């Protein structure tokens, strides 16, 4: 399987309209997050209660919320919150899952059995229930959100890597390496890791929208990021509380959530097709 950023994979990704659209959307969100202080017309935290719940105008393109904060600025900074939490959380979970998966797949059988038992046990816990339990114990906040996502995501990543490793450990090139006396770290890092990373990247990219939705959902319930930090979820909640007087707030807050979810999903599917041409050829055109 080619490396996700190889020219061949990138060319294949851009050739796929859905993949290209996903790449564009995700790129836009990344730019929005990185350049938020430049792009946002106002300070997203600045209150002006005398200008509360204003409609669309040249001064406030997406109106203002119930405390008179500029909605567009809060959504732009909300992209930063959503992406930083989702990328950090899935990144940490992916790294730990990768390590555990490699150990389970390449290590001794007893260790594999123990790890699988632990991973299956964690996996059996319902995600939202686990999230609420953790939040109840240590309180809401950005750290808690990341912790929840990491704990919830590790098992699936570890199982994916374990399965890949198990199938590769009997491959001829690995057996050849072992025959010439290559050390275990060398086999893991030089040969197994590059081969299992591609599928992991695809899964990670497809999981980012799930994390974005989880963050938004918990923030909507006031259990996510703490106010006044802008998050798409708490902007959506602010919109809900004033939906009868200012419905544009809900629409404005819902749009980036939908677009981000679509973008990451299209990108993930595009990457999968680009990295595994056999799959692409079976897809209806």
């Amino acid at each position, binding site marked *: 399987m080619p490396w996700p950023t190889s020219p061949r994979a990138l060319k294949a990704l851009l050739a796929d309209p859905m993949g290209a659209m996903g790449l564009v959307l995700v790129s836009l969100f990344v730019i929005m997050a990185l350049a938020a202080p430049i792009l946002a017309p106002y300070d997203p*935290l600045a*209150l002006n*209660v*005398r200008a*509360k719940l204003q409609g669309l105008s040249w001064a406030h393109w997406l109106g203002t919320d*119930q*405390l*008179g904060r500029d909605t567009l600025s809060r959504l732009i900074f909300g992209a930063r919150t959503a992406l930083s939490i989702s990328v950090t959380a899935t990144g940490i979970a992916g790294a730990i899952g990768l390590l555990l998966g490699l150990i389970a797949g390449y290590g001794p059988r007893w260790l594999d059995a123990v790890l699988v038992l632990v991973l299956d046990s964690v996996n059996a816990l319902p995600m939202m229930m686990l999230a609420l339990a953790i939040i*109840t114990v240590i*309180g*809401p906040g950005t750290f808690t959100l990341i912790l929840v996502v990491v704990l919830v995501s590790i098992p699936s990543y570890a199982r994916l890597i374990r399965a890949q490793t198990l199938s590769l450990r009997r491959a001829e090139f690995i057996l050849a390496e072992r025959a010439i006396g290559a050390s275990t770290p060398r086999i893991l890092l030089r040969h197994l890791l590059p081969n299992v990373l591609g599928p992991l990247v695809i899964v990670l990219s497809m999981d980012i929208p799930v994390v974005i939705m989880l963050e938004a959902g918990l923030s909507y*319930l*006031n*259990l996510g990021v*703490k*106010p*006044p930090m802008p998050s798409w979820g708490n902007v959506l*909640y*602010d919109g*809900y*509380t*004033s*939906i*009868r*007087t200012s419905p544009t707030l809900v629409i404005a807050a819902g749009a980036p959530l939908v677009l981000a979810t679509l973008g990451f999903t299209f990108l993930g599917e595009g990457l999968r097709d680009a990295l595994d041409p056999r799959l692409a050829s079976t897809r209806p055109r």
Partner: protein
Amino acid sequence: MTKWRTDRRGFLQTAGATLANLTLPANFAWAAEGETLRLRVTADFQVLDPKGIIGELDEIIPRCTQVTLVRLGDMRDGNTWQPWGAEKIDWIDPTKIAFTLREGLVWSNGFGPVTAEDVKYSFERIAHSDSAWAYQFEKLDHVEVIDARSGILHLSEAFAPFIIIALPYYGGNIVCKAAVEAAGGSYTTQAPAECGPYRFAAWEQNQKVTLTANPDWTGLKPAFSTVEFYIVGDDQAAQLAYEADAFDFTRLAVSATKQVTAAMPEGASLIQAQSTRYAWLTININAEPLKDLRVRQAIQYAYDSDAVLLGAYDGLAARSTGVVAPTSPFTRATNLIATRDVEKAKALLAEAGVSDLTLQLVALTDSTTQAIAQIIQASLAEAGITVEIQPTEDAAYWSLGDKTAGDGYKSLELVLMNFSGGIDPTENLVWFRPDQIGVNNWSFFDSPDFETLYQKGLVEQDESKRKAIFNQMEDLMESSGGFIFICFEPYIALHDSTLKPVILADGQPDPVMFTRV
């Protein structure tokens, strides 16, 4: 509530009913027979025993299924009281109230008539107990039983507001001595005997409670034969449900007022009144970063009242000057720190040698409280104080200041609070007495002067002297640096315009007194 039908069948039903009505004798009272009153409440009930009731449905149900000596009228009409379970109730002297129960009051489940012995049992079991309502009976010495229906309430000291504080609700609900003792001395969700205009009929947990008219009730018949309480926690959902004709009466979020006023649902009326619910910011005197009075005063000076009232209450409420209602003749004229002064706040912090102060602000998760919290966060930031908001769910919130739930109450820093108030100022001031620390007094406000004044205020008969006492008590509260008085929240409710609702001083509806216009 049944809606008028305009189809053929509906017309025939209406015409038939009208004809039947015309043929009935003029004095026949059919009291809206078969009509159902549907009220929205925000939470399910937990305890029906008057000793342990907490609020809303806990109180509304006993108001319908139990009997009290007196009954209060609508808060908008001045909270006047009238005899209810008592046919006579009079002051004999400043420490004695004689009462005679009405004839024909009978307990359900075969427990016989309501007696003066039941009154004695009901009041004395709460007075000087650990009940939240014990304060209502603090001045009750004992109840003397004269005969089966008569008795005298003996007070330890003269206490003029006793009748309106203690008797109309909460601990004033009379229970059946024999039935409660048979139930082990208390009960939770099922009253062992009822005597009120209604009886408890059905309960769908977290969804609905139904009361039906008590056939044995000999007092004033309620206008509705059935009362249904629908449990809907969210104000927005309740408003939508009201518009979909799911119920006839619902309270609304303050933020909905403008929208409802601009586009009133068909056939609906809006109640917009001053409630007795008072909101304030608790500043914990005991918490380490707040032990210096100058730091607490800095918070008081940095607080932006105008922004809070406009941002969170749409400008529908005025700043309160204490916990005594602004409609009361005993209200304080102004706050000691009435004007915002950020520079003064900064100077006080500098004088106290405090920099980089970060405080935790606990706030319930409802939209109004969260809006207040964020405005306070922004206004204190201008003075250099960082506030971290801790949104807290209702269940966890109330245990934070509870001393029986661990030592956490000692280190709370800032908390946004609001309580439903009473009619007499002492009912609102009682929660800030020293013995309420770790119960309802989360500021750790521990003032012997306040307690002395409270005791004086209870027995003082002269109105102007009472006003001076209560004002002084609020001065003490504010100058302790433990409080910022926010406002008395507006009472907003939507109801079918053919109804005449009755709202009691605690902000709860009284279904027994609801009538059809």
